[in-house]
Every structure is written in C-alpha cells, then in structure tokens.
C-alpha cells in the first residue's frame, strides 16, 4: 500500500469535502447542474430565479450547516474520548444532548405554544439552556471528583434522569406536541436560515478554538491523568476547558439540528485509523474534516436525490454509524488499543 503523508491525507480529505459540498448543493428533490451553481456564486444572470433561490435559501445554508455540525460533533467526540480515556465516550455521554432534549421537551410538550418566527429561536434557546444546565452540574461534580470513569457514569446518570423526565412529559402531552418534538429528535441540518447561522457558526468556531488550544494537554492525557499532572498539566483547568468546548460544540448542534447520533463516536476512531496517529495536532484537523465529510454524506443520502422525500437524518447516521462502529471493533479486536 502506498503510504501517504499526513499532509497528503488532509489535502485529500479537503478535496473530498469540496466535492461533497458541490454534490450536496447540486442534489436534492430538484437537480441543479454544477455549472449553474458556479453561475449563481459568480453573480451570473442567466440562471433561473428558482435555482438561485433554492441554492441561496435552502441548499447553501443546509450544506454549510452540515459542514459545521459534522466538524463540531467529530471534534467533541475526540475530546471526550481522550479526556475519559474511553473509546465509547462521545459528546452525548455527558448528558448534554439529553439536557438539550429536556429543554426542548419542556418548551414543546409543556404546551408553551410559541409559533411563528419566534418558535425556532425559543426552541434553540431552550435546548442550549437545557444542555448548559446539565453541563454545569457535570462540571460541578467534575471539580470534586477526580476520577474520569466516575464522571462518565455520572454523565450517563444525568442523561437517564433527563430522558425519564422527557418520557413523563411525553406521556401527558397532546399528539400534536409529541409530533413536533419527534420531528426535532429526527435531526436535520436544513432548519437554519442565514440569521440563525450568525449564532450557530461563531459558537462552533469558538468551541473549536477553545478545543484546539487543548491539543497539547490532550496529548499528555493519553498517558492518564497522573502522568499528565506529573508533566505539569493543570488537570482542573484543562478539564474545564474541554467540557466548555464540548458543550458549546455539541450543545449548539443539538439545539439547531436535533440530537444527531453516532457521529461523535465514530469520527475519532476513523481518524485514528486513517492517520495512524495519536497526536492531537493531527487528529483535531482530521476529525474536523472527517466529521464534515460524513455528515454531508449522510445528509445527501437522507435527501434521497431525485425523490420528493427526505429521510430523518438521525436514522441515516445510525444506519451507517452502527455498522461502522461494529466493523471497527471487529477489525481491531480491541477498540481500546486503537483508542488513544
């Protein structure tokens, strides 16, 4: 096998991402030729208004959302797996998505019927508030409990607790409300308009920057917290930085796109296999690119190009994500070896 350098691999993924971007804008219920896409971007007049509207108001925001959401989830997963030294950790293990669900459930199911333009905003805010409350609780516990395994279990318990409240709320809600909530849980990157993206994108970029600044501590954490501390790492500071970064990334994606499953878990593993590295200065860009690529791909598949139907995004990521994780485990025999 030809062995490619890290830069060649990153470049390759970058090119793949650009191709998928074009494909994602071009494919959908209506096919738009690639030539027309370039014409719209260069301001060329001869393209039909319909194509231009579809691209500027639907396909482009959706594509950009997928790219940022995928990158955010992949990177959040990487941080959690290294922090908890657990190959099965993901942003959702901390209970962040359950917290977000609880926020949304309280809003939708408790019948605080907000409609119109405010609806998507209140939904997003409720979800972010829900996720940050769970995050703050986990953070509080993390300051007093040194052991990452315990923190992981506590995160799981927070998740179970909030899910239970959501179930109770669902039980007492009207069919319409349950349907609204259910649609949110299906996951979609197509719900954001340009205005909402002005919040979505900066929050993700902030989360990525905070996370990237932890790349060196993440490398040290590979040896475990004791070794990391003996090398001069300030464990509490780093842990708080990682939890803030993860919750910004996973929280804002869950708020605007619903709880998207499997991506945060699978992307870091694929990155480690492709790049054969444990160095986070390589793995961070790798998970960002691979996360974007995978979510774009899932989104293109969910569109069922040429058909007037859309599959729930969450179903597609699970349909592909679950076998990928099983394949990874079978292939490597022991995921914790590959993990790192």
């Amino acid at each position, binding site marked *: 096998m030809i062995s490619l350098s890290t830069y060649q691999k990153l470049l390759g993924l970058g090119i793949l991402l650009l191709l998928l971007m074009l494909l994602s804008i071009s494919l959908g219920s209506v096919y738009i030729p690639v030539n027309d896409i370039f014409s719209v971007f260069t301001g060329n007049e001869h393209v039909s208004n319909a194509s231009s509207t579809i691209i500027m108001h639907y396909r482009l925001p959706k594509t950009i959302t997928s790219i940022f959401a995928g990158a955010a989830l992949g990177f959040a997963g990487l941080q959690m797996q290294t922090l908890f030294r657990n190959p099965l950790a993901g942003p959702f293990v901390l209970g962040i998505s359950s917290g977000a669900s609880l926020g949304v459930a309280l809003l939708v199911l408790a019948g605080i019927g907000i409609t119109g333009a405010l609806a998507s905003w209140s939904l997003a805010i409720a979800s972010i508030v829900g996720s940050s409350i769970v995050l703050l609780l986990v953070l509080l516990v993390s300051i007093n409990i040194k052991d990452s395994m315990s923190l992981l279990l506590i995160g799981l318990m927070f998740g179970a607790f909030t899910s239970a409240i959501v179930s109770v709320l669902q039980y007492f809600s009207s069919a319409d409300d349950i349907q609204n909530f259910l649609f949110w849980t299906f996951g979609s990157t197509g719900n954001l308009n340009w205005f909402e993206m002005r919040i979505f994108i900066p929050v993700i970029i902030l989360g990525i920057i905070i996370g990237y600044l932890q790349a060196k501590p993440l490398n040290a954490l*590979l*040896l475990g917290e004791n070794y990391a501390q003996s090398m001069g*790492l300030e464990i509490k500071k780093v842990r708080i930085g990682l939890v803030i970064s993860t919750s910004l990334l996973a929280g804002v994606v869950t708020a605007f796109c619903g709880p998207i499953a499997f991506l945060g878990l699978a992307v870091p593993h694929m990155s480690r296999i492709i790049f054969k590295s444990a160095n986070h200065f390589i793995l961070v860009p790798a998970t960002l690119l691979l996360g974007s690529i995978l979510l774009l791909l899932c989104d293109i598949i969910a569109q069922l190009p040429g058909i007037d139907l859309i599959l729930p995004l969450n179903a597609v990521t699970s349909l592909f994500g679950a076998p990928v994780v099983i394949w990874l485990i079978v292939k490597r025999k022991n995921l914790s070896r590959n993990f790192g």
Partner: protein
Amino acid sequence: MDKSTNILTTKNLAIGYKKGSQKNILLEHCELEITTGKLICLLGANGVGKSTLIRTLAGLQPKIEGEILIKGKEVSSFSPKELARNMSLVLTDPIQGGNLSVLELVQMGRYPHTNWSGKLTNNDHEKVNYAMEQCGIHYISDANIFEISDGQLQKALIARALAQDGEIMLLDEPTVHLDANNRFIVMQLLKKLVVETGKSILISTHQVEMALGMADELWLANCEEPLITGSPKELIEKNIISKMFPYLSEIR
C-alpha cells in the same frame, strides 16, 4: 568527599488519606533527604504507604502534615509546570496510548519545556535523543508502545522521565511485572543514570537483595514507625535489615 547537594527535604511529614475530619495516617514524622547523584530504594511491606509517599512527594496527593521542600522551597508553592521541570515520575498506571510510538512517548517528557503548540526545539530533540541513548531504546523508536515487551516499555517510560530533565526522578515499583533478567537490567540502568547524569532517583521496590547491592541509600518503611534511612552497609551492621527481612538469612 561527598560533593552531593541536597535537593529535596521533608520536615515532620505525615502522609495518608483525609476524609472530612477523619485522618488515616500511613507514615508520620518523616525527616527525609534526597541528595544529588544518589539511588535511593524505598522498601517496605505491601500497604505500608510506599506508593502514597511517592505520590505525596510528587504532589499528586495532598500531604497531611509537615513540609516538603525542593531546593528550599515548599512544593505546594510550585506551579505544576515548575514542579514538572524539577521532578519526573514513572508510575505503575497502565499505559493505553493507542497509536503512540516509543519516540512520541519519550518526546512527551519535554511537555513542561515546550509552548502551547508542543513544538520541540533542537535542544528538546537533543534531550530526547540523549534519554533514548542512555536507556538503549533507539532501535525500537518507531515501534508502537503496545507492540513492545514490558521490559522495553519500562525502559521507554524511564527515558520519558529522563527527557523531562528534572533533578529528581521518582519511580513506583519500576521492576514489578518484569522477569528476573529485566529487573536487573532496569536496576542497572537506574544505577548508571545516577552516576552519569547526577540525578537523584528514588524507587519503591520489593527487590530487597538487589536494593542492598545497588542502592546508595535505603528508606525502610514500617507500619506506625518513622522511616529508617541509611546506607545498606550501615543498616546491615545495625541488624535492622535482618530484623525487617528475616527470610534473607534463611535463603542463605
């Protein structure tokens, strides 16, 4: 003609675990000294507090009472980075680095010396090179750390601690899990490092015979008694060794 200088001192040190107002003291009234260029072996039964002492000296665990001074300065007033530049560790914690190579593992020793991007300078590369050479692991530098043997891994971990380049290295049972030959090789390596680099190395071990033969100084830990310190010769002559390890005479 002892030219060694004092690096680490403890005064009335008590170690153990605190839970609320309840204290579980393992060792107390410890008056210890680590001087440069010495190999010190900490001996004692299981559960007597050897690992706790090492963890406490390393600042991984709070002490209960007393002072720990490095170069005259209280350890708790060091920043984590400053402390890491003075002291490095080899622990018994399992290493699960995944794709990490031996070279990358040793390079991690430079952590407290590099900036946020972790970029190694020429000086850092030299220190890493020197550490790998001293420990004789150049030939496996590209190997993945889960591919190598326990003996090789132990040498790599010692090289990592050496690359960190503090005056003191603390090793918690570095010869555990190793076969007889590798135990000797690792001890010999530590002895050589003390002589050639002038660093002070403190290890906890159950290899009494080897400690008697190779250590410059022994620290003997017994339950609810102050630590006894001294050179192997001194402690043998005072019959302390034969009292603490009666099996030694039976083997001979």
